[in-house]
């Protein structure tokens, strides 16, 4: 597949790869290589300008937009700029995916408190994003992305603003989700993060193309359950 914005040059060219169901992937490459664009295709914020995307067994390239919300609810996204709603509390930001999926306030309370506690923000539940530090905002964004136990987790530099200890805890969380069957795709420059994650695959992008079509396997996926 390929992707271009407007009439500009293609930012992604001739990409052809499969993500195994339950796999753990790192997406690496220099700045401007197209990592964020590729992630946008994965979390259905963009359609490719050519080629096809098949996700959760469905051909989504030409799927009507009314179909997309049901697939987006199966995807958790950690944005590089966090994308927290400024006027909502940390609690409400984390609760958003559950509420959109139709959970009542009572159903939301427990899981959100638990998740906030897990990312170390139990006492910041009522704080609004502008009053949180960068690292705290990032943890709220991660909590929001995983609260629904997504089938696919897409994270863009998820540890960029947190200290080493928190980065390790977050990667443990991603690993735990992965062991429960969530496919994880993490875009990062952090080599330490990659080497500390056994069983992960690496996809390297350069100038909008995958440089190593074999996938540059570090380790085979822990428990491949098919193809996404």
């Amino acid at each position, binding site marked *: 597949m390929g992707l271009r914005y407007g009439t500009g040059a293609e930012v992604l060219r001739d990409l052809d790869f499969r993500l195994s169901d339950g796999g753990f992937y790192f997406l690496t490459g220099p700045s401007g290589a197209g990592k964020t664009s590729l992630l946008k295709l994965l*979390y259905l914020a963009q359609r490719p300008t050519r080629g096809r995307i098949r996700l959760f067994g469905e051909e989504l390239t030409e799927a009507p937009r009314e179909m997309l919300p*049901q697939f*987006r609810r199966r995807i958790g996204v950690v944005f590089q700029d966090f994308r927290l*709603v400024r006027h909502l509390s940390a609690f*409400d930001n984390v*609760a958003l*995916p559950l509420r959109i999926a139709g959970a009542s*306030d009572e159903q939301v309370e427990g899981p959100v408190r638990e998740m906030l506690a897990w990312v170390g923000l139990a006492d910041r539940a009522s704080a609004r994003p502008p009053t949180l530090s960068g690292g705290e905002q990032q943890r709220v964004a991660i909590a929001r992305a995983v609260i629904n136990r997504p089938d696919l987790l897409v994270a863009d530099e998820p540890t960029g603003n947190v200290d080493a200890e928190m980065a390790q805890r977050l990667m443990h969380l991603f690993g735990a989700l992965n062991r429960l069957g969530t496919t994880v795709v993490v875009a990062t420059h952090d080599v330490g993060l990659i080497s500390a994650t056994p069983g992960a695959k690496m996809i390297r992008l350069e100038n909008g193309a995958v440089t190593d079509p074999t996938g540059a396997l570090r380790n085979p996926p822990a428990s491949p359950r098919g193809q996404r």
Partner: protein
Amino acid sequence: MFDWLLASPSERRLLGEARLRGPTAWVIAIMSFSILIIAAAGLALASTAGVLTRAIEARYSIEVPAGGGNVAALLSAVRTIPGVKSADAVPELEMRQTLERWLGPAAQSSDLPVPALVNFDVQPGANLAAIQQRVRALAPGATIATHREAVGPLLRSLRLLQWVAFGLVLLLSLAASAAVVLAARGALDTHRFTIEVMHGIGATDEQVTRLFQRKIAVDALVGSLAGAAAAGIVLLMLATGAAFAGELTGGATLSVGDLILLALLPLALTALATGVARAAVLAALRKAL
């Protein structure tokens, strides 16, 4: 049916507590006020025209140029014509008083010949040609005039004004709708980021629209009711004059049905604003992926 109006506190928090951006509620209040005043005037005109039409529809006048003493005989004869429901002669004194407005004291002069005038009403379905033939046989020089023709231009003006009023109500409703569309687009711009996040997490257009729809409905309702309250006060102040006008025209005031219609107008305006806002928001959301 109204679940969108009863959004949970968490849903309400998504768009913040502020009302619609800009003076939308004020614009709707002004529109509601204007619509109610104009609609009331239109309905009163329609009522007046109706009363006037009913009063003159079957009324005719016989004018005997020579006037004179055979009026009583003519009146008796006319009353016996089949199809004539009632007949009355206009007293000579009343005729002279009427002429006095133009002629002054000379109107009372016995040298001034005053025509005799007999008004009569016919029954529905009466043979008018036969009645006219009988009248001409009784008073060969007499002319028969239909009141409908005489008052026709006034009635046409009243009807035209009535339609102009209803046209204005329609135009004001369209203007209110346009204001709501602009407000909805403004609100979408203000909350674009929140909408993008919601869409990204899997919110449907319907879920996003519900938030805006509820907010716009509340603002439209507040504006409509405020405008209606102001219009109600003005209409009450006009009520005395309207009652007087009603007496002049034989009871042409707003009926209970008219008042119910006026009371429903603010609700109709709210429904229109909500529907228009919904359509505008949905159309805007469909442009995004």
